């Protein structure tokens, strides 16, 4: 498998990354329809910033824990079922995007190969989030699909519960931050 494809698929392979993208996608779908692009763009901006930091050989960061915390926070907001203020949602998305990128250091033996993997990761995460947000928005936008809005909130509670449990486990084992 080429480095680009490996990077492209990374968001789907790592459970914590897939969970974060799902949480953000559901969170964005709960925003008002005309305000959904901003958090999506903020995520991509955070992602690019984080990937650039990795390319510049930034050291060890607590990105994995931050990403889990962002997922848990998003899950709680989704379960509550009220749209966040747009700027707060965008800030959370940007923060999660940066954490996502910083938690995706490429395993490559050359700078060129590593850069290709990073580009794949950035593209894969952006497309996956856009698809998750679009799919969830399609479901919740139709007035008659009350069950979809309820289902999204239930999923949010599951995401929050999962993230809380893993963060607590990491804290108990001295792995947090």
């Amino acid at each position, binding site marked *: 498998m080429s480095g680009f494809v490996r990077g492209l698929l990374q968001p789907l392979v790592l*459970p914590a990354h897939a969970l974060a993208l799902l949480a953000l996608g559901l969170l964005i779908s709960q925003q008002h329809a005309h305000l959904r692009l901003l958090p999506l763009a903020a995520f991509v901006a955070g992602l690019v910033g984080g990937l650039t930091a990795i390319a510049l050989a930034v050291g060890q960061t607590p990105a994995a824990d931050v990403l889990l915390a962002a997922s848990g926070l998003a899950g709680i907001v989704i379960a509550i079922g009220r749209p966040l203020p747009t700027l707060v949602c965008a800030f959370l998305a940007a923060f999660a995007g940066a954490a996502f990128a910083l938690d995706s250091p490429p395993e490559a033996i050359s700078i060129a190969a590593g850069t290709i993997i990073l580009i794949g990761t950035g593209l894969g995460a952006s497309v996956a989030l856009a698809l998750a947000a679009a799919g969830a928005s399609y479901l919740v936008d139709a007035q008659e699909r009350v069950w979809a809005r309820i289902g999204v909130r*239930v999923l*949010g509670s*599951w995401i929050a*519960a*999962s993230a809380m*449990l*893993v963060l607590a486990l990491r804290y*108990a*084992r001295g792995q947090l931050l």
Partner: protein
Amino acid sequence: MRPRASRLRLLLASFAAMLLGGGPALAHSGSGSGGFVGGFLHPVFGPDHVVAMVAVGLWGAFLGPPAIWLLPIVFPLVMAGGGVMGILGMPLPGVEIGIAVSAIVLGLMVALAARPPLWVAAVLVGAFAIFHGHAHGGELPPGTDAVAFSVGFVVATGLLHLAGIGFGLLARWPAGRVTVRVAGGAIALAGLAFLSSVG
């Protein structure tokens, strides 16, 4: 309709008898394996956990909206809080008893067709969720599979609620209403069996 309802009642009575004749309470038997499948199977193989989760869904369906979706949202969130307590080693007395009592109380709520205010139902379900979460919390595996395990665990719990809701929707019809209440009684009896095995 009546013969069919009788058969359903017989089936539920058999189910209750099977649970009553079962082994001790094992809400956290611990599959030992990590990953999504390990987490998913973890609650499914704990009969006291299973009946209590189904009872949450049954009661929610019995109470109707908004309880039908509010209780399954409250439960995993509060359960995670109990799980955090378990993971951090915070003591919680009578965990096994609390789990068994959850089956008894929630089963009785369905059997008696209790309709308390929504906040009372949510607080009751949330209180029991702490015991369930605490019992399971200490068994999350370390390492990279922890996320997949916890997701599997939470999803299985949610699907058990969904199973209860699906069954509880029978309460829309008169015969189904009786069936659901009988199922609640069977769950309460199973909870009694779990409680006696704990004691």
